[in-house]
């Protein structure tokens, strides 16, 4: 009888190198699933000596004055509307969190900032982030010490907004450049360059009446809707300090 037996026993699972690659691969999968929180926390400690100081005060105060004037106007109108309706939920802004920007990607495809406050400080996914001027974006992910914010200019961002002059809701879509697009699903909307855009009172993602931007140009490529370029009031590429709004809408 012929005895058939294996001459070579070398298989990939017998190689130490293959197992090392497999373990590394598992580690990267872990990093991917944990959304890079190890890296972000490591970056938190690494960048700590370089966090921004207080030198932006004058720029911030000027922007804040502008923001407050616009906000006051909006709040007065909103107050009148609310008194008429009498059934809106209450919002409280007592526990806002101040945070410094420790990483900033404002060009290219990835438009995000990372803040030095994380789940340890009570930041939650979905919180709105504002800077001098108005809305910057929403918290998309938190680690223990940091939180990542998707800017409104990011291609991932889609928000409901409100054009106050013509009292109409629209959709603000980030397209990967510095000016997001506002889509109005009404061809007859009388929107003009210079109109002010704020967060929508009907939005379930954002608190109402946060200033966002000003209409920069209007385009009508489709029959049934208008596409509008919006110039943002808050400048994410220069802001060093932001406020995280912990509002329950």
């Amino acid at each position, binding site marked *: 009888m012929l005895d058939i037996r294996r001459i070579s026993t070398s298989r990939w699972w017998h190689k130490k190198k293959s197992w090392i*690659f497999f373990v*590394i*691969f598992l580690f*990267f*999968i872990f*990093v*991917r699933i*944990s*959304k*890079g929180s190890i*890296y*972000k926390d*490591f*970056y938190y400690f*690494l*960048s700590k000596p370089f966090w921004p100081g207080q030198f932006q005060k004058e720029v911030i105060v000027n922007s804040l004055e502008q923001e407050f004037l616009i906000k006051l106007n909006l709040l007065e109108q909103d107050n009148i509307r609310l008194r008429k309706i009498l059934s809106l939920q209450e919002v409280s802004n007592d526990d806002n969190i101040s945070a410094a920007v420790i*990483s*900033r*990607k*404002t*060009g*290219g*495809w*990835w438009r*995000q900032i*990372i803040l030095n406050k994380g789940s340890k400080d009570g930041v939650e996914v979905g919180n709105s982030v504002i800077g001098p001027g108005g809305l910057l974006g929403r918290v*998309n*992910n938190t680690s223990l010490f940091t939180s*990542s914010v*998707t800017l409104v200019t*990011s*291609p*991932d961002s889609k928000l409901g907004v409100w054009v106050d002059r013509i009292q109409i809701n629209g959709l603000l*879509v980030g*397209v*990967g*450049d*510095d000016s997001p*697009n506002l*889509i109005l699903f009404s061809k007859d909307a009388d929107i003009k360059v210079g109109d002010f855009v704020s967060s929508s009172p009907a939005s379930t993602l954002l608190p109402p009446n946060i200033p966002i931007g000003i209409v920069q140009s209007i385009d009508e*490529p*489709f029959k049934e809707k208008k*596409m509008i370029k919006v110039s943002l009031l808050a400048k994410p*590429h220069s802001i060093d300090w932001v406020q995280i709004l912990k509002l329950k809408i």
Partner: protein
Amino acid sequence: MYKFFKKKIPLIFFVFIPIIFLWHPSWLGFLGFQPYWPLFWLLPWSMINGSMSGLVFGLFLGLILDSITLAGNFTQIPGLILCGFLFGRIKLHSDFWIGHFRYGLVCSFGSFLCGTFYFLQILFKNFSDSNFLMFIPSFQNILAEVFLTGFFAPLFCSQLIRIFKFSRRKLH
């Protein structure tokens, strides 16, 4: 200890790619745009270690960079895998100047590939909304990145190739 660190230099540089990706040093960019950092590491690594290694580390880089960028709907993995594989098929050039310019050209091409893959994902995802045409102007992101990557590649890649070659040399 020295021997260990010498051997692991490329991997130490690998660890710092996501850090520099997060750091986003504005003084090394232009109008808020940055070069596509992972290619500066992937090109020397693939040229020295070959296509398969380039492909695997392209995947690793993609996994890490996807995890630190927020774009949950889009991924950088296909572009980096393809670049890792293609870069592995390029041989080192003996001429100093041609080698340098080639790093620039190859990295520009890689950056164009990665950017295009990413852009196509954005278009594909928004295709059904009929709003996808408004994303067309953001093609400028690819052009800016291609230019910056090609501009800085000769500087970074040539140094990294020297370091990686040094790390492979045996100690006497």
